[in-house]
């Protein structure tokens, strides 16, 4: 439940104001829409990751799943736009299967999800490279890439809205509803807060956890489709995305090992990271230094949260 404005929104607003001062175009509708479009995959991924984090787990496999979606789609579509629809359906099925596997191994074989999904990270990346022979092959047709790079035109007031932003909005609303307004969401938080207590009070822990991993994997499939559209076929498109998603959720106030986290916070965390990169880019920081500052910021944010918790 969101009781008051979490600090992440203040930080996000401050960074956005700063960017606008440096680059007035950012504060216009098209400028902000472009920003949201670039941030959409990471924000969707953070939303999915949060389901797993509040339940006390990690999903490290999402980055490799993104790579598999991008490479696998280009292989299966094979240049024929008529294949796009069923290939996207197949990708969602693969995602659901990965999520069920992650959740089932964690729940029934008692392998910590950090390890389960680390194994999946290695396996899925290997599988994607095996499938394509290690090099990006083929291309994604326009009707696949439209979701990641095109805009819906003729929208009243806003004129053009990227499809990615509409998808982000839908994901945000659905995910917020699922986590904060359903019994499953409450069970997830209970499971993360105290797994034994949750089990003893009748929470079907395996089912609840498997669904969380399915949600996370599904978000990775959506993010993969958007990234494939935005930047095309590459073998390292998903690398490191899992750590970005975890960082975003944590910046948004989620507690690792479970029990606490808000969906608007996690999405704002991802937007903040993207805004920060935009800002540092405008200030002329080279990319490695930007990554370095990200490290300091996530430590600072978590230390601040821990300090506030101890004081209260």
């Amino acid at each position: 439940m969101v009781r008051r404005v979490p600090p992440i929104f203040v930080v996000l607003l401050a960074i956005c104001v700063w960017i606008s001062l440096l680059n007035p175009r950012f504060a216009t509708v098209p400028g902000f829409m472009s920003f949201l479009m670039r941030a959409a995959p990471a924000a969707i991924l953070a939303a999915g990751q949060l389901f797993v984090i509040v339940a006390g787990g990690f999903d490290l496999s999402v980055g490799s799943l993104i790579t598999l979606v991008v490479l696998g789609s280009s292989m299966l579509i094979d240049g024929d736009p008529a294949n796009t629809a069923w290939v996207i359906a197949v990708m969602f099925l693969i995602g659901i299967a990965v999520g069920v596997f992650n959740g089932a191994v964690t729940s029934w074989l008692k392998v910590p999800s950090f390890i389960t999904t680390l194994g999946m990270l290695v396996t899925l990346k290997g599988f994607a490279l095996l499938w394509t022979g290690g090099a990006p092959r083929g291309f994604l047709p326009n009707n696949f890439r439209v979701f990641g790079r095109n805009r819906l035109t003729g929208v009243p007031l806003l004129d053009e809205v990227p499809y990615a932003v509409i998808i982000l909005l839908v994901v945000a609303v659905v995910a917020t509803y699922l986590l904060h307004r359903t019994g499953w969401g409450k069970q997830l938080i209970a499971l993360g807060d105290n797994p034994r207590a949750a089990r003893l009070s009748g929470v079907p822990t395996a089912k609840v956890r498997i669904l969380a991993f399915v949600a996370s994997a599904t978000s990775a499939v959506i993010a993969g489709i958007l990234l494939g559209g935005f930047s095309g076929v590459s073998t390292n498109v998903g690398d490191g995305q899992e750590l970005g998603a975890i960082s975003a959720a944590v910046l948004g106030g989620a507690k690792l090992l479970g029990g606490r986290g808000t969906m608007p916070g996690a999405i704002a965390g991802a937007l903040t990271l993207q805004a920060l990169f935009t800002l540092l880019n405008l200030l002329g920081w080279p990319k490695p230094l930007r990554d370095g500052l990200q490290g300091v910021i996530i430590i600072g944010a978590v230390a601040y949260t821990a300090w506030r918790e101890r004081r209260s």
Partner: protein
Amino acid sequence: MSGYVIRKPGRAGLPPAFLFLAGAFVAAWVLVSLFGRGQFLSAANISNIFVRSVALGIVAVGQSFAILGGSIDLSVAHLISVTAVMASFIMQGDPANIARAIVVVAAIGLGVGLLNGLIITKLRVNALIATLGTGLFMQGLLSTSFQNFAGAVAPEFEVLAYGTWGPVPIPVVVLLGVVALGALVMHRTRFGARLYAVGGHAEVARLSGLRTDRVLIGAHIIASLSAVLTGLFIAARLGAGAPWVGQDGVYDLESIAAVVVGGTALAGGRGGVLGTLAGVLIFSIMDSMFNQLGTGAFLKQVFRGFIIIAAVASYSVRSREEVG
């Protein structure tokens, strides 16, 4: 404090991971003999398997300390890059600079381990985030300052990677020495016993009078110093360090994988470095086998992920606790 008896933690015999190691060895032997090219059981190949294990093995020993204490270290890959670059940059091919280079990188390792430990214990930042953050920070500084191979190690320094001691390669001697030292610290010192206590149940350890923070900081310093040694080995092997050598080897996730395949519990408190050595050797045997079978690197990767999950499942499946 000196009066009480310390119960020797850990198992007296070999950890169960050695059973998997034996299984992997036999499976690789049979498969390569039937379908592969070359001899699996030749002295050259066995030596090759060990040499393959050195870089990952050393850093995995340090990672075992962090994980045994209930923590984790994601910064090792970046520290390996920092070490390899700094060592070859300071040496500039001159043997007179070897000592200075080693002192500098050891000091960096000490500082990074101390910083990781302090952030985790004093600022109460989750270890995953803390070491992810310090790793990103180090890599940022490094990649801003260096874009390519920097300097060169002294030719004398390459002994660390290419020298032999009788028939045994020096790197293998170093690896076994590090494992022996790690086992000694873990099983025969008070610090080791305290580390098991902290990893087993930090709150109970604290209430029984252990300074848990110091123990964890010590574990992180060991993890960082082992990453430094791996970085030195890689610099010796390549002749120079580049800012991507650590990440290219995925030493962060691979070392964690080797530790848990070796039977150390991710939650801490159970396991040891001998198991970690078995975990690393299992990976090297599989690598060697897939090479000799000529199946290519990607199939190997597909299998490796499943091996990680299956090995850990075999240890955890009887647990009745909820695992997150």
